[in-house]
C-alpha cells in the first residue's frame, strides 16, 4: 500500500476504535427521531421546496440583502461589518472586545466562528473565551475540534466526558452520569455567562428587512449570551441572509426536524439587536432590572471568506443554501461509523463539508478524505433544502483530480481511454474505467479471473492501484449478456406484444452478473413485453464516483446515443442496476443537454419498478415465481429515488415473506469497498447490515439485494449467496416460451 493510503487507513482504523461507537449511537438515535417526526407530516416535501426557493432567491439577491440588513441594523442602533476573510473578521471582533476592555467573553456554538478560529484570536488579545453550548464546551475542554455541525461532541460517550471532566476540574465529587455532567457544566458555564463582558453568538438566519438574527438551540445558552452582557457580537456567513421574517416558517418547521428529529427546536430566538431587554448586571444584584441603564451595543459581522466566489460558481453555489442542520452527516453510513474527524477539512465535517471546505479553505482542505463520500445519495433526501450533496462532492473530486501530479501517467495512458486529463490518480482511473476493464476481463475469461486472483497479481494491484487483496474481485463471464441475447432465437411473439422495452445492460450485468440479466429478460417476456437489448456502455456511474466528470459525460453521451433510437421507437428503458437508473434520473441532467436527459429520465425504469407497473396493468403474476422467506436489502440510490417500494410491493404480490434491512447503506457503494485505504471502513459499515440481518435470524432465508455492490458486500459478510430480486421472481427457465 502506498504511504498515503496506509496513512489514511491507519487514521480510519484509529477513529473506528476510538470514536466510532459513540458516533454510531448518537447518529442512530438522531436518525430514528428524524424519520419518526418526518413521518407525522405529509408536507415535508413542500416545506423543503419552499425553503430551497427562499434560499435560491436570497443568494441571488445577496448584495442587495447585505445593504438592506446594514440599514435595518443601523436603524436599530447596531453595526454591520462585512469581513472579507478570517483575519479581517478577527481583527474587527478583537477591536470590539478591546474597545470594551473585555476580559471575558461567552460564546454560543457557531461553526462560522470555528471557521475563522476566533477563539485563538481573542485569547491572543487577552480575552478569556468560554463556550456555553455544553457539547462545544466539552470540545473546548478536550482541546479538540467539533466532529459534527450540530453535536460537536458527538464522538464522545458519557464515560469519555466523565473521564475528561474529572481529570480537568477539581470537583467535590466524581462526576459520573449525564445528569451530573450536565449540572456541573451548566453551573460552571452559567457563572461565566453572568460574569461575561461580551456575548458572542452565531446566527442560523438573518432577516434582512428587520435586522433580526435567528438563533436555534435547545439549551438556552444562545439567549443568555445574547441578552445578558451589554455587548453582543453575532458572527454569520453572508449566506445566512434571508429577506424577511415572512420567510421564517419553513425553516422553523424544518431545521429541528432535520437536525435532531424534534418537531420544533426548544428555542427559536428572533432577536433584533440591540434588544430592548434590560442588561443583567450581576455585579449590582439588587439594582432593579427595569432601571438598569440600557447602553447595549450590537455588532453583526457578516463573513465572506470565499462565499462570494462560491456564489459565482455554478457548481458550488448550492452549498450556500445549507442551513447546517447536520442531517447529511447523520444519514451518511461512513459518518455513522467513523465520525466527523475522519472527514476532516479544517472545520466542516460530514456530507456537505467538502463543499464548505472547498469554498472557504480551498481545495487542499477539501481534498483530504473527500473520498469518504461514496455517492450513495442517502443525504439527498435528508437535506431540508434539497442540496445535491453527492454532486458537490463529485465536482470537488473532479477539481482535486485536475490538480493531482502526473507521476503515474505513463502507466495508464492508452490503457484507460478516459476523457479526463492526465494526472488523475491511477486507482481512480482503474475504477473509473471499469467498463473497459470488464470488457477485457470477459474476453479473456477465465484466464483473466485466474490471473486476477493469483497472489502475485493481487499484490501488484494492491501496491499500484490500491485494490485491497482481502476483497474478492468480480468474476467475469465469458459469454456476456448481450452475446447471449443476440444468439437467441427471437420469441414467437416478437413484434406483437403490447409493450416494448429495451434492457440497458450495465457493465456488471453484462460481464459479471449475467444471470440477473437473463432473469430480467425472461421475466419481462413472460409478462408480455417485447424485449430488445441495448449495447453495453458504461453509464458514467464508475467515472462519476471517481470524480472524472469529463469521462462520465462521454459515457452518458454514448449511452444516450444508443438509447435514443429505442426511445424514438417508443420503447421503455429498463435498468437493472439502481445506481444506473439514478444516473439516468439524477445525474444525466448535469451531463447531457436538458431535453435529452429529460426524455431518458422520464422513460426509464428500474426492472422491479417496471414489473410492478406491468402487474398493475393486468399482467399475470402467476407466471412468476412466488412464495418463500427472504431477507431483502434494497439499494441506497434506489431508496433515494423512492423506487425500493416497487420491489417490495412485487414481493408482497407474489406472497413472499420479507425481512427488510433499514440501515442507510451496505458500505460498499461501488468501488469504495475495493480500495485498500477504505476496505476496513467498508467492512465495518457492512457489518451493521449483517448484524441487523443476523439479529432477525435470517439464516434460513434467501438473501436478496438489488445492487451489484450490495450483493458483493453481503456475500462477503454472510454465509448465504445473494440474488437479485428479478432472479428470484423470474419464471423457471423451462417455463419460458423459447423458440419458434
Amino acid at each position, binding site marked *: 500500500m502506498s504511504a498515503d493510503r496506509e496513512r489514511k487507513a491507519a487514521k480510519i482504523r484509529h477513529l473506528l476504535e476510538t470514536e466510532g461507537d*459513540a458516533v454510531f449511537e*448518537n447518529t442512530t438515535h438522531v436518525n430514528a427521531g428524524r424519520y419518526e417526526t418526518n413521518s407525522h407530516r405529509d408536507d415535508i416535501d413542500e416545506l423543503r421546496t419552499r425553503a430551497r426557493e427562499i434560499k435560491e432567491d436570497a443568494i441571488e439577491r445577496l448584495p442587495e440583502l447585505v445593504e438592506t440588513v446594514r440599514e435595518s441594523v443601523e436603524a*436599530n442602533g447596531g453595526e454591520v461589518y462585512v469581513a472579507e476573510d478570517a483575519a479581517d473578521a478577527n481583527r474587527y471582533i478583537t477591536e470590539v472586545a478591546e474597545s470594551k476592555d473585555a476580559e471575558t467573553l461567552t460564546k454560543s456554538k457557531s461553526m462560522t466562528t470555528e471557521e475563522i478560529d476566533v477563539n485563538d484570536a481573542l485569547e491572543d488579545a487577552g480575552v478569556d473565551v468560554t463556550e456555553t*453550548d*455544553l*457539547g462545544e464546551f*466539552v470540545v473546548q475542554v478536550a482541546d479538540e475540534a467539533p466532529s459534527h455541525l450540530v*453535536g460537536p*461532541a458527538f464522538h*464522545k*460517550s*458519557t464515560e469519555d*466526558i466523565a473521564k475528561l471532566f474529572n481529570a480537568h476540574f477539581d470537583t467535590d465529587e466524581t462526576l459520573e*452520569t*449525564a*445528569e451530573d*455532567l450536565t449540572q456541573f*457544566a*451548566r453551573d460552571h458555564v*452559567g457563572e461565566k*455567562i*453572568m460574569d461575561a463582558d461580551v456575548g458572542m453568538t452565531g446566527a442560523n438566519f438573518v432577516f434582512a428587512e*428587520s435586522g*433580526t438574527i435567528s438563533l436555534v438551540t*435547545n*439549551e*438556552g445558552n444562545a439567549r*443568555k449570551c445574547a*441578552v*445578558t452582557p451589554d455587548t453582543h457580537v453575532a458572527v454569520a456567513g453572508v449566506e445566512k441572509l434571508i429577506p*424577511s*421574517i*415572512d420567510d*421564517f*416558517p419553513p425553516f*422553523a*418547521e424544518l431545521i429541528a426536524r432535520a437536525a435532531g428529529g424534534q*418537531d*420544533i427546536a*426548544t*428555542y*427559536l*430566538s*428572533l432577536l*433584533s*439587536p440591540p*434588544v*430592548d*431587554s*434590560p442588561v*443583567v*448586571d450581576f455585579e*449590582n*444584584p*439588587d*439594582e*432593579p*432590572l*427595569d432601571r438598569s441603564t*440600557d447602553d447595549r451595543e450590537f455588532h453583526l459581522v457578516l463573513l465572506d471568506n470565499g462565499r462570494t466566489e462560491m456564489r459565482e460558481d455554478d457548481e458550488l453555489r448550492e452549498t450556500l443554501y445549507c442551513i447546517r442542520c447536520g442531517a447529511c452527516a447523520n444519514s451518511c453510513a461512513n459518518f455513522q461509523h467513523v465520525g466527523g474527524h475522519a472527514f476532516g477539512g479544517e472545520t466542516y465535517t460530514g456530507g456537505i463539508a467538502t463543499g464548505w471546505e472547498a469554498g472557504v479553505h480551498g481545495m487542499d482542505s477539501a481534498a483530504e478524505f473527500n473520498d469518504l463520500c461514496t455517492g450513495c445519495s442517502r443525504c439527498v433526501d435528508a437535506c431540508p433544502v434539497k442540496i445535491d450533496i453527492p454532486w458537490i462532492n463529485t465536482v470537488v473530486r473532479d477539481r482535486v483530480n485536475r490538480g493531482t501530479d502526473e507521476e503515474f501517467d505513463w502507466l495508464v495512458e492508452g490503457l484507460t481511454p478516459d476523457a479526463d486529463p492526465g494526472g488523475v490518480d491511477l486507482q481512480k482511473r482503474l475504477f473509473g474505467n471499469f467498463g473497459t476493464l470488464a470488457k477485457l476481463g470477459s474476453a479473456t475469461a477465465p484466464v483473466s479471473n485466474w490471473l486476477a486472483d493469483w497472489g502475485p497479481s493481487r499484490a501488484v494491484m494492491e501496491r499500484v492501484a490500491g485494490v485491497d487483496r482481502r476483497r474478492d474481485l468480480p468474476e467475469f463471464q465469458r459469454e456476456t449478456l448481450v452475446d447471449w441475447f443476440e444468439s437467441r432465437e427471437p420469441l414467437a411473439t416478437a413484434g406483437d406484444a403490447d409493450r416494448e422495452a429495451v434492457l440497458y445492460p450495465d457493465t456488471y450485468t453484462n460481464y459479471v452478473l449475467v444471470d440477473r440479466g437473463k432473469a430480467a429478460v425472461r421475466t419481462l417476456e413472460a409478462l408480455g413485453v417485447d424485449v430488445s437489448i441495448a449495447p453495453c456502455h458504461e453509464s458514467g456511474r464508475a467515472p462519476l464516483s471517481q470524480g472524472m466528470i469529463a469521462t462520465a459525460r462521454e459515457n452518458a453521451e454514448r449511452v444516450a446515443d444508443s438509447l435514443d433510437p429505442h426511445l424514438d421507437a417508443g420503447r421503455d428503458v429498463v435498468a437493472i442496476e439502481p445506481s444506473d437508473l439514478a444516473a439516468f434520473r439524477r445525474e444525466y441532467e448535469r451531463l447531457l443537454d436538458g431535453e435529452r436527459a429529460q426524455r431518458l429520465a422520464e422513460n426509464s425504469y428500474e426492472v422491479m419498478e417496471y414489473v410492478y407497473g406491468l402487474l398493475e396493468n393486468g399482467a399475470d403474476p402467476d407466471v412468476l415465481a412466488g412464495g418463500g422467506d427472504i431477507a431483502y436489502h434494497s439499494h441506497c440510490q434506489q431508496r433515494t429515488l423512492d423506487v425500493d417500494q416497487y420491489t417490495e410491493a412485487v414481493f408482497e404480490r407474489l406472497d413472499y415473506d420479507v425481512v427488510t434491512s433499514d440501515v442507510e447503506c451496505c458500505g460498499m457503494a461501488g468501488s469504495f469497498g475495493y480500495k485498500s485505504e477504505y476496505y476496513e471502513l467498508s467492512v465495518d459499515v457492512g457489518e451493521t447490515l449483517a448484524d441487523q440481518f443476523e439479529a432477525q435470524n435470517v439464516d434460513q432465508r434467501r438473501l436478496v439485494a438489488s445492487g451489484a455492490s450490495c450483493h458483493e458486500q453481503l456475500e462477503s459478510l454472510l454465509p448465504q449467496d445473494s440474488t437479485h430480486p428479478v432472479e428470484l421472481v423470474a419464471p423457471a427457465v423451462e417455463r419460458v416460451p423459447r423458440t419458434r
Partner: protein
Amino acid sequence: MRTDTIDRFADSLSGADVACTRVEAGAFADALDDVVEQPAVGVPLDIDGVSLDDTDVEVPPTPRLLREAETGVTRVHGIVDYGTFVIQADEAGAEPVSLYPTTHVGVVRASDLRENVHETASWLGEEFDAGRDSAVLATGASATADMGELVSGVHGPQRVHAVVLTDR
C-alpha cells in the same frame, strides 16, 4: 371554538411536558399562587383585569432574584400546534425572567393563541413593524443530549407551566 383551541393547545403542551392550568381572570391570583414555587419573580403582565400585584410574585426583577428565584412569571402568546410560548422581549425583562429561574410560568390569554408557526410569523411581522421586534419561540423545558443522554434544564428552565386565561 375557543375551548377546542385551548384543548388542543393543552394537548400540545402536554406533549412538550408542560403543565397547563385554565382559569378565568377573576380567579387568576389564587390559581397562580397555587402553581408558583417561592421565591418567584415576574414582570407586569399588561392584561386587562389581571395583575401580579395581588400575588406572591416579586416585581420588578433584580439580578439577585433572577439567580435565586425558583419561578419566573411572564406573559406569553401561544402556538397551538406545538404548545409553544412566544415570549416577546421587553424593557421590563420578560426575556431574562423566562430564562433564568428553574420554572417558567407563562400566562397566556386564550385570544393570544395562534394555530401554527405560519400564523405566528405573520402576526410577528406586524409586531416587528410596530417596534416589538424581538421574540423567542420556546417549546418545553431547555434540554441537552450533549452528555450522552437527554437532560432537562440546562441554561434555561427545567420546568414550564402554562396558565391560560380562558375568558381573555
